[in-house]
């Protein structure tokens, strides 16, 4: 077992993890963050996506120990100020949520995109979520939601 210390959704976190534990497991089982999902366990579906230093990673392929000293964000971060992030509102409004299993991961990939690129075009948006599978929506309303959210974020000057 080793102790890892990291930033979790903006707050300091410290937990004990096994050497062979994945970040996915640590988040879900030890920290109760079940918004991070397991869909395949081998980095081929995207539902386990978390942000590591604001970049999307597959937590199922990340050893928990790699989180040490890093800034880890899950979907809870988006509404951590108590209000829905424009992305979350846009997802709701645009019909981007059907079964919802891919949704937290999609939101994180989208959030990371908007941090890097406040003015994404259609291709940028498609590429940003190209590592997140969705079996329900066909992606179109998700992409519309991200586009709408980008415009709102620009107006608000927020990330």
């Amino acid at each position, binding site marked *: 077992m080793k102790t890892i210390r990291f930033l979790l959704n903006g707050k300091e976190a410290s937990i004990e993890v096994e050497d062979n534990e994945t970040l996915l497991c640590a988040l879900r089982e030890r920290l109760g963050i079940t918004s991070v999902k397991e869909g395949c366990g*081998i*980095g081929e579906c995207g539902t386990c996506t978390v942000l590591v230093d604001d970049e999307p990673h597959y937590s199922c392929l990340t050893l928990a120990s790699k989180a040490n000293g890093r800034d880890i964000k899950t979907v809870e971060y988006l509404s951590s100020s108590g209000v829905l992030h424009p992305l979350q509102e846009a997802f709701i409004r645009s019909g981007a949520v059907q079964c919802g299993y891919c949704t937290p991961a999609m939101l994180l990939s989208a959030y990371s995109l908007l941090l890097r690129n406040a003015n994404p075009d259609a291709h940028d948006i498609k590429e940003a979520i190209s*590592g997140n599978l969705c079996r329900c929506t066909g992606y179109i309303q998700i992409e519309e939601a991200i586009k709408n959210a980008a415009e709102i974020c620009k107006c608000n000057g927020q990330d």
Partner: protein
Amino acid sequence: MLPKFASVTARTKDEALSWLSSLENPKIIAGGTDLMVKMRAGKHYSHIIDVAGIPEFLGVTEKDGRMSIGPAMTHARLSTEASIVRNARSLALACGLVGSPQIRNMGTIGGNLGNASPAADSIPPLLIHDAVLTLESRDARRKVPLEEAIVAPYVTSIDVKELIDSIEISPLRGYREGYRRVAKRATWAISRLGVAFAIREENGRFLDARLAIGSCTPMPFRAKKVEDLLKGAPKNEATISEAIRMALEEIKLISGIRPSYAYKLPVLQGILEEVLRG
């Protein structure tokens, strides 16, 4: 569920080398995108040594006309790194096509080489840039050309106590360069064919044409015979046809006739025609 192992995080190269030398049944982990899948399938190592954060393994530098790439550079970083985009365009393109955004954020070029998949996208571009690996163990240091380092599909000649210290390549300036690949869906798929090319032409002649093909033979290979044919040759249909014929012959010589060649060889022919015609 992963098998039981102990893991350590190396902060410097010396730490990594020391552990690699002293720990039992050790394995280097960088991004983990290949290794984690293997371990989940049951592959067992006693000690995992994390080298992803070692500063010496990051960055791209230029010295004496050669470029040196840190093995822990992620595919995402390399695909946008200015000096790579400018001087090794096929490598930047290939890195931008590996896996998905998440895989590119995690996976490293060192890891890609260490895994030595016949379909690794980074390998053909490295081959046409005369890539040489610097391998280091606690007690020794050696340089190995990339084509000698990969000995069989998924097998390298890198010793279990060695790690990749750097990857050196020649920059290519003034070339028409690119990377073409074919896969069963638009992204996030194993390449069924990969072609790295860098071509310099002038006054209707090929001055230098570099070509490496992946996902076709057990190891990605550089078509040196074809390159020799093209060097100085007039750029016309006869030369191009002969070059292509030679490439296909060389592939059949290496691998025999594989069932997948019914698909791959005609595709390769078409791609080479487009690439050579420009």
